[in-house]
């Protein structure tokens, strides 16, 4: 009896030790990830972004940009001869739960060295604490809201919109605008932040009065009432912070309501998203972190390479993916280590120094990128730099 009990205790102790070892192996920060491991011959990057669903354009664009970057990195032997980068695409399909489960899948795969994280703020903010706990370096693109860059393992390569929106208000001031209205989607985190805090602050600093602030929901599809209210107030300019289909309708109905003054918008209207508005969009001005109209050397080089590979113009989402992948590659080179911990250290180092990419010169506030961006004007189906 005593022998059997001892055997049971030994067995239980053995199981407990195995469980602890298994937890260490599966959980965050395994011993093998502590860095100093050199650069592997194959580096696996998971792109956990929308490939389908309502914001698939962001994920698909980023995929193309990342693929171009990988091609260049491998061709140049940037990380050493024969070093390959494998890009694994995991679709979040516009769902927060799916983003969480796909991120868990990527983090649980010991071959995944770094992640390009979700492009939607709600998805990104949900998974950001997880990557901190699991200690997987994650570079987000887009996801401009709060709660995304929150720990040492979270980085963002797309600057938050409010960081480069100042130039819009500066443009309006230069054009002599004294009064503006703000029409914004209050259920879209980036626009809510900008519409309720960013724009009022920037306008006040420039002596511009906000005569009207009209919040709408994600489900708002008809803007006839708001357009007539704006036309009645007739401000010198309208700041329109709406998602792509909403902006097409709003532009049409603003014209129908008789509002003909300057309208400024956001980078959401880039990537041809405003094309369906036809002539109603002519003269629309919006800031973008990247545009094919940008004349910087690195932006032009990216545009040229992208056109050669995909036979079409790149959009800002492709620039995001391109810069995110180059950010990771530079990080690996900087630390000389392609392990998760090595990449994290490298990302922090590159962020301190900044680098030049498709979006021009990228500097960082902590782990969060900043760019000058460009102000573009839409005219007859094309973007040109706003004068």
């Amino acid at each position, binding site marked *: 009896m005593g022998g059997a009990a001892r055997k049971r205790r030994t067995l239980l102790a053995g199981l407990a030790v195995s469980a602890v070892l298994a937890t260490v192996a599966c959980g965050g920060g395994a011993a093998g990830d502590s860095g100093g491991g050199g650069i592997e011959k194959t580096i696996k990057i998971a792109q956990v972004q929308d490939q*389908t*669903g*309502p*914001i*698939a*354009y962001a994920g*698909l*664009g980023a995929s193309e940009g990342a693929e171009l970057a990988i091609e260049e990195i491998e061709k140049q032997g940037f990380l050493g001869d024969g070093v390959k980068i494998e890009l694994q695409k995991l679709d979040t399909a516009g769902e927060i739960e799916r983003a969480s489960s796909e991120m868990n899948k990527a983090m649980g795969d010991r071959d995944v060295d770094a992640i390009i994280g979700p492009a939607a703020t709600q998805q990104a903010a949900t998974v950001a604490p997880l990557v901190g706990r699991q200690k997987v370096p994650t570079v987000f693109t887009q996801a401009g809201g709060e709660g995304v860059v929150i720990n040492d393992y979270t980085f963002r390569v797309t600057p938050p919109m409010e960081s480069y929106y100042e130039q819009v208000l500066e443009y309006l001031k230069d054009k002599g605008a004294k009064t503006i209205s703000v029409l914004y989607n*209050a*259920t879209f985190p980036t626009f809510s932040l900008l519409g309720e805090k960013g724009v009022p602050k920037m306008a006040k600093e420039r002596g511009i009065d906000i005569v009207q602030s*009209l*919040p*709408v*929901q994600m*489900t*708002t*599809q*008809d803007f*006839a*009432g*708001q357009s*007539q*209210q704006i036309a009645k107030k007739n401000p010198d300019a309208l700041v329109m912070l709406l998602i*792509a*289909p909403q902006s*097409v*309708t709003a*532009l*049409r109905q603003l014209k*129908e*309501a*008789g509002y003909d003054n300057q309208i400024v918008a956001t980078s959401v209207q880039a*990537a*041809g*998203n405003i*094309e*369906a*508005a*036809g002539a*109603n969009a002519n003269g629309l001005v919006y800031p973008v972190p990247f545009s094919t109209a940008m004349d910087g050397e690195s932006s032009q080089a990216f545009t040229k390479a992208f056109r050669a590979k995909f036979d079409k113009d790149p959009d800002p989402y492709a620039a995001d993916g391109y810069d995110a992948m180059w950010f990771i590659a530079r990080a690996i080179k900087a630390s000389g280590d392609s392990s998760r911990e090595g990449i994290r250290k490298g990302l922090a180092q590159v962020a301190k120094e900044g680098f030049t990419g498709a979006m021009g010169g990228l500097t960082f506030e902590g782990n969060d990128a900043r760019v000058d961006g460009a102000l573009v004007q839409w005219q007859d189906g094309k973007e040109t730099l706003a004068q």
Partner: protein
Amino acid sequence: MQDLLNVASLGSIYLLFALGMALVWGTIGILNFAHGATFMFSAFVGHLVTSETELPFLAVVLVAVLVGAAIAALTQLLAFQPILKRSKNQHAAEMRILIGGIGVAAIPLAIAQHQTRSSPFGFRSSYEAEVLEIFGLRLSTTSAVVIVAGLAIGIGLTVWVRRSRRGLALRAIGVDAETAAGMGVNRTLLAFGTMATAGALAGLAGALLTFQLGAIAPETGDQLLIKAFAIIVLGGLGSMAGTVIGAYVLAGAETLVLNLNYGTWVDAVSFGLIFLILLARPQGLLGRKEVRRT
């Protein structure tokens, strides 16, 4: 006055979308969750056709109506009819049709999302909307068409369901399908025709709304589906007149909230109002009180 015109325009948008859904749900008892996808995909095909060749207003509408009718007829033939045949009772069939509708909807949605990358799409048409200004009121020609079409089809359908023999047969199916079949009503054929009509209405709504809004996105149908669901329940299931009234009540509530500049409260206030009305009249505004026999 301008606000009333806005209510009429927005209400007619909702009505055009909700009519087809109300027709099949209120008569043959099919809650078709693929209605939004049918609406969207009809407009999407119109977009594809007009990308190749510019078409006039009526031709685009005709394309969308035909596509809508075809999608709905195929949905009935390949999905709902087999489900009805294999289900042991009405309750089981309704649940399966509901899920089946969601499944069917996912296919056109995925195709449109893939093709457009979820960017908004519109029509390349020779039609250019003009703005009419009468006594200081502004109304676009497209809004005028939407209002007239919404009211005319809404009233016409209400009268047809009430007065015509086919309308009577449809209502009989809605009350008791087996008894109606016993009295010579060809349920299968009538259900097929009703679904095709509802699909055509979805196509019409898709085309008119795309002209009215300038563009729609692949997800636009899903957003309207919830509103149509609320409108039908508010008006009273089975009552086409109730659907007409429900659409304008919802539009009126939304416009009122917007005018008070509580844009983010539109859904909360509007659906809250519907909830209150339903507390007082669970059968909806014009619905008949359900009698349960024990």
